[in-house]
């Protein structure tokens, strides 16, 4: 037999919290509370429930408590309202915090910036420098420009020569004509001179050393 744990009270945990803060003004609420704290009672349709909850351990084949629709609905609405209230309160708190922080930052920045007069001078000065031989450029802008240009060139390269395009090497392209001649000829670049460079170099060196040795032994 499965031992069912003692059922938790139907009253929501925040009821105590509610009691601390909230004002149970309306009678309805009180009535609800009363109903909830006690046994959930139903409307006319429901049947009265067991009063003794601790008897669950002994009578484990008892049917579970029944809840009426109205009570459950009321419960859910209450829950929702409470959650909404907390969220609203949290939000206002955060907003206030942010506002205070923002003001603090503005104060700090103002302290950091140069006085307005110097800033004005700078902005007017930058316009008159156009006829001089130098050009003042912000490096950050230049980097951004370069990276965008690189991205654009990469896009073009990918769409024309990237994967999915049907490209061939120039050697193969020029050799097509050779293959269709009445007397077939080799490809335009038949030899691959870039093959085995290291091996060829080693062989050359060995040959040179061997020749020298041969000359020595001959003598």
């Amino acid at each position, binding site marked *: 037999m499965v031992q069912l744990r003692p059922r938790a009270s139907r009253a929501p945990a925040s009821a105590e919290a509610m009691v601390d803060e909230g004002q149970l003004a309306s009678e309805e609420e009180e009535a609800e509370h009363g109903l909830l704290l006690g046994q959930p009672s139903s409307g006319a349709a429901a049947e009265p429930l067991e009063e003794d909850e601790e008897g669950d351990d002994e009578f484990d084949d008892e049917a579970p408590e029944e809840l009426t629709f109205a009570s459950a609905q009321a419960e859910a609405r209450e829950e929702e309202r409470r959650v909404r209230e907390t969220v609203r309160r949290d939000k206002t708190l955060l907003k206030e915090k942010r506002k205070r922080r923002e003001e603090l930052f503005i104060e700090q920045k103002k302290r950091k910036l140069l006085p307005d007069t110097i800033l004005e001078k700078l902005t007017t000065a930058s316009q008159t420098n156009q006829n001089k031989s130098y050009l003042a450029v912000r490096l950050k802008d230049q980097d951004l*420009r370069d990276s*965008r*240009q690189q*991205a*654009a*060139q990469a*896009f073009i390269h990918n*769409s*024309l*020569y990237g994967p*999915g*395009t*049907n*490209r*061939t*090497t*120039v*050697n*193969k*392209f*020029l050799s*097509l004509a050779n*293959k*269709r001649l009445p007397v077939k000829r080799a490809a*335009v*670049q038949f030899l691959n001179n870039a093959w085995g460079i290291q091996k060829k170099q080693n062989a050359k060196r060995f040959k040179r050393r061997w020749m020298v040795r041969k000359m020595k032994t001959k003598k």
Partner: protein
Amino acid sequence: MGEFKVHRVRFFNYVPSGIRCVAYNNQSNRLAVSRTDGTVEIYNLSANYFQEKFFPGHESRATEALCWAEGQRLFSAGLNGEIMEYDLQALNIKYAMDAFGGPIWSMAASPSGSQLLVGCEDGSVKLFQITPDKIQFERNFDRQKSRILSLSWHPSGTHIAAGSIDYISVFDVKSGSAVHKMIVDRQYMGVSKRKCIVWGVAFLSDGTIISVDSAGKVQFWDSATGTLVKSHLIANADVQSIAVADQEDSFVVGTAEGTVFHFQLVPVTSNSSEKQWVRTKPFQHHTHDVRTVAHSPTALISGGTDTHLVFRPLMEKVEVKNYDAALRKITFPHRCLISCSKKRQLLLFQFAHHLELWRLGSTVATGKFLVSGKNGDTLPLSKNADHLLHLKTKGPENIICSCISPCGSWIAYSTVSRFFLYRLNYEHDNISLKRVSKMPAFLRSALQILFSEDSTKLFVASNQGALHIVQLSGGSFKHLHAFQPQSGTVEAMCLLAVSPDGNWLAASGTSAGVHVYNVKQLKLHCTVPAYNFPVTAMAIAPNTNNLVIAHSDQQVFEYSIPDKQYTDWSRTVQKQGFHHLWLQRDTPITHISFHPKRPMHILLHDAYMFCIIDKSLPLPNDKTLLYNPFPPTNESDVIRRRTAHAFKISKIYKPLLFMDLLDERTLVAVERPLDDIIAQLPPPIKKKKFGT
């Protein structure tokens, strides 16, 4: 003619940059071409397709769009986010205005020519007003989600079509809001993972929008309802460009496979009024992607990654069916990129960002060998050609012009912002370089540099029209004189020629004709009468001081400087006229030189032939054979005398970039085979051929 030993040079690794955009201007019949290295060239189509101006490139400038606005103003926009206007009179960039939208992908001028529209990386379409001296930002249109890759105005100027990635939007110009958004299928009747990039759009006056995209489709949309009308699948690869004729009865598209298709509006049946668009002609003149096309009233113009500029006149539009209706392909540059130091047998090659100095090889074939050697033999090299110097330019700008002095001790080159002069010292086999610092500011942006024959004077033609003479001595220089621009505007590219005795300097480059200056007295001597075609090459003969000028319509004039009039030979030639085959050559003459001991000979060359004109022999008329190679020795003397005429043409060395006489018995010919250029281009689209 005599016998010559020829240095056949193939180590000039010249690779032109690919063509990115072209823009055709109907009023002046000129074509603006922009390349991937940022160079913008202007071709004059009525002057025999000659490149008359160019703006040097820049490393950070990646032009993506080029357009003409009203009043012959040229604008370009690129991935650095700036709109640039080019000053065609002063040959510099007027200003560069940042559009603040990130990299700019497309630009279109309104049909009225007074407004400019740019499509940016962040999806915004910006409208600019063209004021008389600048452009001014007017407003932004509704911002779209992805980059705007192509733009087109409706001929009435009320709507625009903007092609983006996977969709096309139609905007109303007045309100700036997007009226329609048409989704493009990623693949013709299929599904694909790759996004469909709409490379080009064109808006016709009846409300049809034509779009070309990366799936190989050409689609017709109705802009009033925002629906697809017709779809053509024309290629397996991207269709990258579209251009519509002014009368809107034909348009041309270019594909990534190198094919150019011509679409025409033809009636459905022979006597019906209903018309439909039909793909009529395919042209395969390119091997790589055709990134740009243009439609002039009589021809289709295409250019792409394989660096050729192709003009295909349409037979039905051409009135007179003569040689003008032939295909023109411009591959090689119209100016000389090589200079030669005859005393030390050095060649200076000019690239976009560096210069290379080479010493020619030599052979020890002596008299005995030469006597027994026949015409056309290859002599063995005893000493290979030597790569002496690789001089990189500082900064991102391209080199405009360069020159080496005849003695080989000075090298000068110019970019847009600086002028560089170097002194070379030769000790045994080593070479050392020393830069002359503190060059004056007025020398920069030079269009042409020339050293005098004795290497004591340097002549610089600047792009403001002024001509500067600088005295060189030891390791320093002194500015002697500046000839200010004469009457007439600085129109074409400037060419210089100096006489071997150092007295006369000839300068072309203004519309008033070729000016001849007296160098010793520092004043203007005379002006050759103006000719309506630009000058392509000039040189002054030794001793006789005759100025020989070649124009872009293949006319050659000889003007005597001391007598201040055309020579008798030149008058005879003009009266009789040149042979028709001579006039039908399609590459300009880029270099003229003379033989030191034979004053009757003129050596000139273009890309596919070199010719020695012998002034003592009779001129050919239209009936004689122009190209008559050396007849076999067993022919009788009579026949040889009958067929001999003044123009000795040889086509052995081609394609020729440069040819000159080093001394009395030696010639140098710099060739650049087309296959060597193609081998260094980016990869092309794979073509599947049956049987391979």
